[in-house]
């Protein structure tokens, strides 16, 4: 397994956000976490991406215990995250948003920036070219000179995905990638996400939209009140009428 959570528990004050959750995610597969608000889905993402530390349990990634590793180191190991509120860099150009995420940037050291200008400039041109290709891949390459905040919400999500790819993430934690996005843009997003999974990325998404889950996801975990209460293929989990009524209110 690419990514495994073992007996994860997390408390906030007196409230148990997660109770003994064990889940495994496979490479090349799209796994959905579903469940009502407050079930602990985003908390789980916070733990996997290193923004929160669990009280109990371990997170194993490529056979390594990463439970106590800080967020920026996890990102360098390949765990990427799309935030629910996207968090693009609003006062930077679309191209800069992607270029900043690239891995190989010795120019991030101020001494290099000052003393090795030619080397830094050359790498910068290569990085920009690579960033343009990623923008093309997600279909917003005609917007590279706009500022981040000038994009529509859906385009911002595509930009954030391009940013994750520039960061060479191999695990993509996508928190509600289609929420607030117009229907046409949803199709573009889903196609992009499917393509990434086929490329061998491990995709985990938090999603409320049932048709998206049925169309896109290979495997589903249902979380309720901090516990995994059901799992299976999307069809199996969603067609369980009792579950639908209890947790999804449909």
């Amino acid at each position: 397994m690419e990514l495994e959570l073992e007996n994860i528990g997390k408390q906030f004050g007196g409230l148990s956000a997660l109770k003994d959750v064990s889940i495994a995610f496979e490479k090349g597969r799209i796994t959905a976490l579903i469940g009502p608000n407050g079930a602990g889905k985003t908390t789980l993402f916070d733990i996997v991406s290193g923004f929160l530390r669990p009280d109990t349990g371990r997170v194993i990634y490529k056979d390594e215990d990463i439970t106590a590793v800080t967020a920026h180191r996890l990102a360098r190991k390949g765990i990427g995250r799309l935030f629910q509120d996207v968090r693009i860099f609003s006062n930077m150009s679309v191209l800069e948003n992607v270029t900043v995420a690239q891995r190989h940037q010795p120019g991030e050291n101020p001494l290099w920036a000052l003393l090795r200008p030619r080397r830094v400039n050359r790498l910068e041109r290569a990085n920009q070219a690579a960033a343009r290709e990623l923008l093309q891949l997600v279909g917003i390459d005609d917007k590279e000179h706009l500022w981040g905040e000038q994009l529509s919400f859906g385009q911002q999500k595509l930009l954030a995905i391009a940013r994750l790819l520039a960061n060479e993430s191999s695990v993509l934690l996508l928190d509600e990638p289609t929420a607030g996005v117009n229907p046409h843009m949803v199709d573009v997003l889903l196609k992009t996400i499917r393509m990434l999974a086929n490329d061998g990325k491990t995709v985990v998404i938090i999603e409320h939209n049932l048709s998206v889950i049925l169309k896109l996801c290979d495997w589903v975990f249902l979380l309720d009140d901090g516990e995994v209460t059901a799992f299976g293929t999307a069809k199996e989990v969603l067609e369980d009428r009792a579950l639908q009524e209890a947790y999804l209110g449909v």
Partner: protein
Amino acid sequence: MNYVLHIAILITLYIILGQSLNLLVGFTGLLSLAHAAFFGLGAYVSTLLMIRADWPFLAATGGGCLVAMTLSLVVAVPSLRLRGDFFVLATLGFQMIIFSVFNNWTEVTRGPYGIAGIPKPKVFGLTAHTLPQFVILACLIVILVLVVHWRLTSTPYGRTLKAIRDQETAARALGKNVLWFKTSVFMIAGGVAAIAGALYAGYVTYIDPTSFTLDESIFILTIVIVGGAGNLRGPVIGAFVLVLLPEALRFLHVPDTVAPNLRQIIYGILLITMMRFRPSGLAGQYAFD
């Protein structure tokens, strides 16, 4: 003519100070109230090195720079872990401490009496005796500072600073070591402010603690906010406007007893007006909030 040259030198000093503070405020989103402390550290340390240890001007400037950078590191490590407003308060505390040291460590700084007889800067065998010579020296240093800032802000280093400013959490999620970037930029800004301090000491040949108060820190911040943060143009324009504006009072024949107060009032009004109607400043790219 001397009057014009004097104004020119003031403008160059404030371009250096505004530009270095802009690295923090405009590019990294860190509001610091300690810039006058680093300015003062450059002035005092370089002066002492020249007077007590006979160091030449450039070496003494480098020494002031190093001390300021070391102290920035000492301030940065605990305070950069604080969020937003608490970081501002930590810099305010540092400003107060450094001012007290200048004012009370009399064996070294001569306290409120200040230090007189600071030698004129001598660079590569040439001494800046006259005003025009000093203007040339100041302009060379400003150009150097601007080139350094242009490189820092137009390379991946500056871009990552901007990313941290816009969305710190997202920057962390992309593998950026935020604490390292903030610490390094805080050190660079402190070091550059110290260069302005050495230049200032060499120009006025007399320094005392009153030049490096919290008021001065706020004045430098006003330059950045009025001129505009987040690009290189803003603080340059801010330095021109804020140095020249009060000078205009001279030509309006405002009595000397009123002028200093009036100046403070003008700065205040300017700051409030800009924050309200044009938060990104006259030529800025980023509105500090």
